């Protein structure tokens, strides 16, 4: 991929939260229309539709695999439809699929759709599913592991091995809530949090309290991606993909590549630097740090690697308020999983869609004024991988062509 070869020109999103009467299909069809309208193109320009397979919902997935989306939204000139998934890293693997299709020349316009409805499942179904998703069914699940206990162990290790305090971890929840309060579609956008409230909420898995654990949500979003050439022609403010950098570590946390995880994600160390270098930019050029972490301690581990603070001290940075709305280091401006709600494979997509909105100047009350460049990330599994992406509404050094 050459720098700035592909661009996003429009996004769509529905409210996140508990909407048991709203099917995945309704979500998918709605966000598709919103994204195409936002892009300002005709639906008949869409030549490929890629759906994010969603977690646990077999019937929706089957429909995706069998080509429901292009028919339903009336994409009459669609040539390719497919579903791509890599858990929480799906926003990355989907976009790579899209870039491959665009590079093939078969079409210059691709629509990406995500929809999730967790509220159709019982609490025990969800607990059991996520226990086995975050942990090895043979080696971990018989010990009563849950996704929260996995994140709790990672948090405990991070607190043990860095100067970070549990109050600083709680301050991440407060900051993410402040951002979510500015988002009309966020699940948690009505009540402010305080560090005390977070610390005093019910203990779920020490050291994580209830308000440090994300909540599963129904929701969905979509975006339209095209070639840079077409983007410049049809869109006033396209958002260009400037670079990516990726690494995979493990399935089971016990097999993590880097043994000293003072930050498990942070152990992926110099990954963000590689993304910066490939974009020809540095951390000082970033206007926003769109971190996908799902748990507040993991937000700190990612922030530790972004070149804005010494590793292990990002807790101090967040607690100082500098990552809040109006601060010099905005993070996760839609509140991420903790604020938007956790939509399974969709968290990374919602972070990506928010990244695009910010760079298009369409982020409403959450808008970071004059944002030009940002770095965003996603990752899946039990912290199995990490992908950093630098986006911009201009291409440093101009276009290669």
């Amino acid at each position: 991929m050459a720098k700035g070869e592909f661009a996003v020109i429009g996004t769509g999103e529905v409210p996140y939260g508990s909407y048991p009467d709203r099917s995945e299909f309704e979500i998918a069809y709605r966000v598709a229309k919103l994204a195409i309208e936002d892009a300002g193109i005709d639906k008949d320009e869409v030549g490929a539709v890629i759906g994010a397979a969603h977690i646990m919902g077999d019937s929706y997935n089957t429909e995706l695999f069998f080509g429901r989306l292009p028919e339903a939204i009336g994409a009459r000139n669609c040539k390719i439809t497919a579903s791509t998934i890599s858990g929480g890293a799906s926003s990355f693997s989907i976009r790579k699929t899209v870039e491959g299709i665009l590079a093939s020349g078969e079409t210059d316009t691709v629509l990406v759709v995500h929809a999730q409805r967790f509220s159709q499942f019982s609490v025990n179904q969800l607990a059991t599913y996520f226990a086995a998703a975050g942990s090895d069914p043979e080696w971990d699940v018989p010990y009563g592991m849950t996704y929260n206990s996995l994140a709790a162990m990672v948090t405990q290790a991070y607190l043990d091995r860095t100067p970070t305090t549990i109050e600083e971890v709680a301050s991440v929840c407060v900051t993410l809530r402040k951002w979510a309060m500015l988002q009309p579609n966020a699940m948690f956008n009505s009540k402010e949090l305080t560090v005390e409230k977070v610390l005093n909420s019910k203990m779920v898995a020490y050291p994580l309290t209830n308000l440090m654990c994300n909540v599963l949500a129904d929701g969905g979003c979509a975006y339209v991606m095209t070639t840079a050439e077409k983007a410049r022609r049809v869109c006033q403010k396209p958002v260009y993909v400037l670079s990516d950098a990726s690494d995979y570590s493990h399935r089971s946390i016990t097999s993590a590549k880097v043994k000293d995880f003072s930050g498990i994600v942070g152990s992926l160390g110099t990954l963000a630097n590689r993304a910066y270098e490939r974009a020809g930019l540095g951390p000082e050029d970033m206007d926003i740090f769109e971190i996908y972490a799902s748990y507040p301690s993991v937000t700190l581990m990612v922030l530790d690697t972004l070149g804005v603070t010494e590793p292990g001290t990002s807790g101090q940075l967040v607690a100082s308020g500098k990552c809040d709305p109006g601060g010099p280091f905005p993070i996760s401006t839609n509140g991420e999983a903790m604020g938007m709600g956790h939509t399974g494979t969709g968290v990374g997509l919602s972070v990506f869609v928010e990244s695009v909105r910010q760079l298009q100047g369409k982020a409403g009350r959450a808008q970071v004024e004059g944002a030009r460049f940002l770095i965003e990330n996603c990752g899946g599994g039990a912290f199995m991988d990490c992908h950093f992406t630098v986006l911009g509404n201009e291409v440093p050094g101009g276009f290669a062509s």
Partner: protein
Amino acid sequence: MSQNQDIKELLGLSDADMVKPLPQPTPWSRPFWEATREHRLVLRRCDSCGTYQHPPYPYCEVCWGEEFSWVEAAGRASLFAFSVNHFAVPFPFWGDLPYVTAIVELPEGVRMISNVVECDHEALHDGMELEVVFDDVSEEYTLPKWKPVGR
């Protein structure tokens, strides 16, 4: 067990809902579970390169060797990371709350997820020395767990 019974009645759960998940061995992991049944902790060592691998896969992750020995482990570990579960666990584990899940590191160089038992939760700390204990969770299966050395 009373907390366990409470949630069962509260939510109208069936007996099947309260059955704890057991290991589902593969052909290449079965010797591990056969040994724990006899209250022995064994690890798989590659005959070609000497690597201990846990969890095991059909061939050695390092050299792709296919010949192995199952070697008696020292039965010691150090606590690498832990969490204390208080809420929102799958229903079969409700009666065990609060319980400790942990990553333990064995001197043989492998890590495992397990429970730390017979311990004061307040006194848990990373680097703590542990020794293996065996929990016969069913007729067929025994889970290796860990407790602080000397307790």
